C-alpha cells in the first residue's frame, strides 16, 4: 500500500508546486470576497471612466478652436489615470479583504495546521499565496481593461509604454497591499483583526500623504513613505528604479514577515528577533533603493524631460553642478522649481547637487531674508543667480555658466496631443448592467461547476455513487 512507505525526507524538495498554486487560486475564487470586489469595481471604474471621457471631450471641443490646446491633451492624464484611480481606491479599501482570505480562512478552519505540515517550505507557501493574490488582482483588473478597450473603440489613443508603466505601478501597489494583508493575517487570530491591521497601514499611508506632504526634514522624508506617493511616480509617466526597487523591497519584506510569523513551533521571542532582523534588512534595502538615480521618462509627451536638444546638451555637462535654493519646501515656487527644473536636471546632468538652505524653516520664518527666493547655480568656478522657476530661464543661465551655445530647438518633436470628443454613454449600461451581469453569471458558474469525479465512483447514468 502506498501509504505504508517508509519516511522520505526528500519529499519536501521533490513536491510539485502546481497543486499548491491551483489550490491557492481555487481558494480565492471560491470565496465571496473577490467576486464582491469585482462587482463593486464595475460601477466605480465605470463612472470614473464615463466622467473622464466627458471631461476629456469638453477639453477636446475647446481645442478645436485653439489647436495649441490640443498639445496638452494626453489620454494618460485624461483617461487612463482617472480610470485606474477608481481601481486604486478599490485595491486600497477592498482588496485587503480578498488577500486576507488567502490565509485568514485557513487559520479560522484549522487548515493552516495541515498546510504547514505539507511538503512545502513556509516561504514556498507564502510565495504561492502571493502568486494567487496577484492572480486575484489581475481578475480585479477586468473592469479597467474593458474601460481601456472601450476608449480604443471610441477611436481614442493609448501609448503602450506609458500605459504599461502605469499598469506596472498598480501591480506593484496591489502586491504590496497583498503582502501587507498576508502579514496582517499571519499575526492576527481572525480575519477581522487582520483587516483592521491592513487598513491601518493603508489609511496611515493616506495620513502621511495628506498631512506631511510638502513638509521638510524628517516629516518630509516620512511623507515619501506613503504608498500613494509611490504610485504617483508611475502616474506621471516616470519609471523610477528607486521607487520600483523600493516597492519590491517592501513587498519582499512583508512577505518575509508573514513567513516568520507563520513558521510553526517557533517561540515568540525568536519570532520577534527575526522580525527585527527582517525589518532592519528591509530598511537597508529601502535605503539602498533611495540612492538609485536611474529613471526613465516613459511619457509620450516627455513631461519629465527637457526638450530633446537640451537633454543631449545637458547630458554632456561633466563638471559638478551645485544648485542652492533659498526657498521653504512648502513654498509653491519651490514646488514649481522642483517639477520644472530640479527633478529634470537630476535625471539628466551626471553630477548635480541640490541644496535647500531653508530646509526646516517655514515660508513665514524665511520670507523676510533678502536672499529668500534666490536660486544659485554654480558650475565649475562660475556662479549665477536667478529667481525664476522656469526652465526657459534656468537653462540659458546654465549654458552661459558652462560656456556652451544654447542648442537649437528641433522641429517636429512636439507632442501633438490627442483630442477626442467621444460619447461615453455606452459605458454606463456596460458597467452598471452588462458587466456586473456577466460577472454574476461567471460567479454562479464557478460555484456550481461539478468537479471531476473518478469514473469508478460514478454510476452508469452519470450520477455519483
Amino acid at each position, binding site marked *: 500500500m502506498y501509504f505504508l512507505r517508509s519516511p522520505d525526507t526528500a519529499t519536501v524538495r521533490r513536491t510539485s508546486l502546481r497543486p499548491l498554486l491551483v489550490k491557492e487560486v481555487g481558494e480565492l475564487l*471560491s470565496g465571496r470576497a473577490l467576486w464582491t470586489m469585482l462587482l463593486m469595481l464595475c460601477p466605480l471604474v465605470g463612472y470614473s471612466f464615463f466622467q473622464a471621457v466627458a471631461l476629456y471631450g469638453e477639453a477636446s471641443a475647446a481645442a478645436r478652436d485653439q489647436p495649441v490646446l490640443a498639445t496638452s491633451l494626453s489620454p494618460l492624464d485624461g483617461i487612463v489615470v482617472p480610470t485606474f484611480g477608481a481601481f486604486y481606491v478599490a485595491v486600497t479599501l477592498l482588496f485587503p479583504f480578498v488577500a486576507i482570505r488567502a490565509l485568514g480562512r485557513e487559520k479560522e478552519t484549522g*487548515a493552516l*495546521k495541515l498546510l504547514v*505540515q505539507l*511538503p512545502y517550505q513556509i516561504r514556498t507557501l507564502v510565495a504561492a499565496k502571493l502568486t494567487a493574490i496577484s492572480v486575484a488582482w489581475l481578475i480585479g483588473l477586468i473592469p479597467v481593461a474593458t474601460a481601456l478597450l472601450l476608449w480604443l473603440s471610441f477611436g481614442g489613443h493609448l501609448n503602450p509604454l506609458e500605459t504599461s508603466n502605469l499598469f506596472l505601478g498598480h501591480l506593484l501597489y496591489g502586491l504590496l497591499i497583498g503582502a501587507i494583508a498576508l502579514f496582517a493575517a499571519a499575526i492576527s487570530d481572525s480575519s477581522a483583526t487582520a483587516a483592521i491591521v491592513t487598513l491601518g497601514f493603508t489609511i496611515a499611508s493616506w495620513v502621511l500623504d495628506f498631512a506631511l506632504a510638502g513638509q521638510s526634514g524628517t516629516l518630509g522624508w516620512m511623507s515619501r513613505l506613503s504608498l500613494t506617493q509611490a504610485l504617483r511616480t508611475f502616474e506621471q509617466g516616470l519609471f523610477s528604479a528607486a521607487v520600483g526597487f523600493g516597492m519590491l523591497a517592501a513587498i519582499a519584506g512583508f512577505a518575509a514577515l508573514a513567513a516568520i510569523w507563520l513558521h510553526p*513551533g517557533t517561540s515568540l521571542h525568536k519570532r520577534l528577533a527575526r522580525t527585527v532582523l527582517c525589518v532592519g534588512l528591509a530598511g537597508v534595502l529601502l535605503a539602498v533603493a533611495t540612492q538609485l538615480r536611474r529613471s526613465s521618462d516613459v511619457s509620450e509627451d516627455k513631461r519629465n524631460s527637457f526638450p530633446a536638444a537640451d537633454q543631449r546638451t545637458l547630458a554632456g555637462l561633466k563638471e559638478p553642478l551645485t544648485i542652492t535654493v533659498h526657498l521653504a519646501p512648502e513654498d509653491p515656487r519651490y514646488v514649481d522649481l522642483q517639477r520644472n527644473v530640479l527633478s529634470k536636471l537630476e535625471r539628466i546632468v551626471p553630477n548635480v547637487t541640490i541644496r535647500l538652505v531653508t530646509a526646516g524653516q517655514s515660508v513665514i520664518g524665511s520670507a523676510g531674508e533678502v536672499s529668500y527666493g534666490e536660486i544659485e547655480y554654480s558650475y565649475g568656478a562660475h556662479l549665477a543667480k536667478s529667481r525664476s522657476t522656469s526652465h526657459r530661464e534656468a537653462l540659458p543661465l546654465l549654458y552661459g555658466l558652462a560656456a556652451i551655445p544654447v542648442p537649437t530647438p528641433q522641429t517636429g518633436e512636439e507632442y501633438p496631443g490627442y483630442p477626442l470628443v467621444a460619447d461615453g454613454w455606452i459605458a454606463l449600461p456596460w458597467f452598471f448592467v452588462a458587466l456586473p451581469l456577466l460577472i454574476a453569471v461567471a460567479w454562479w458558474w464557478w460555484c456550481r461547476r461539478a*468537479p471531476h469525479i473518478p469514473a469508478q*465512483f460514478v454510476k452508469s447514468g452519470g450520477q*455519483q455513487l
Partner: protein
Amino acid sequence: MMEAALLQVAGITKWYGDQRALADVSFDVRHGEILGLIGPNGSGKTTLLETIAGLLPVDAGGVLWQSTPLPQHRRREVVLYLPDGLRPWDGQQVIRVLEFFTSAFGGQAADLTKAIRSVGLEQVLGKRVAALSKGYARRLTLALALLTPHPVLLMDEPFDGFDIRQTREIMALMRRVAAHGRTFTLAIHQITDAERVCDRFILLVEGRVCGIGSLDDLRARIGQATAGLEDVFLALT
C-alpha cells in the same frame, strides 16, 4: 524482549505564561501500535500532540526518531498531526481536497481511490467540505491521513461525531492500517472508545503522565485483574 521505540517523547515541558500545560512528559511510541492518549478535557492532550508534531514550541524536552534526536523542523517528515474539528478548505469540493493532498505528496490515482473506499467517502465526493456532516468531515480527515506517507499519525479526537457503527468501522480500518506498519497516537477523551481500539495508553491529567502501558499493565499497577480502563483511570489519576 521489549520492542524498540519508533518515536520517543523525552521530557517535554510546556508553559502558557505562568500556567504549566505539560510537565516533563516522556513516553515511547512503538512501530505499528495504536497508542491512546487518555485524559479529561484540558489535560494537555492537544498541546502534547502539537508539540510532538513541531507545531508548538516547547520549554524543555524533545522528540527522538529511532533513538536519534528529531529537530522540530524535520518532524513533518515522519509525523502528521490531524487536529480536532478540522474542515480543511471548506469552500472546495471533497474530491478537490483529496486530489490536492494526493498530488502534494506525490501520490497516484490508485492511492486516492483506495483512500476514498477505505473510509467510505464515495457518496460525498462532489459536496463542499463545509456541507459535510461531522462524521463525513472526520472520514475526510482520516482519508487525508491515509494519502500521506508518514509512518506516525497523531489524531485528535478521531471518533468524535461518529455513531457506534461508524466508530467500529473506523476502528477496524485503523487496525488494518496499523497491521500494515503505520502507527497511530490518538488523543481520546471517551475512555470506552479508547479501550476498544488502543494497544497501550498514556494517562494524562493536568499535563502530567499518571500511567503508561497496556490495559493489563495498568490493571497490574492497581492490583485489579478485571478492572476496565475507566476504573484504572480513576484509580491512577
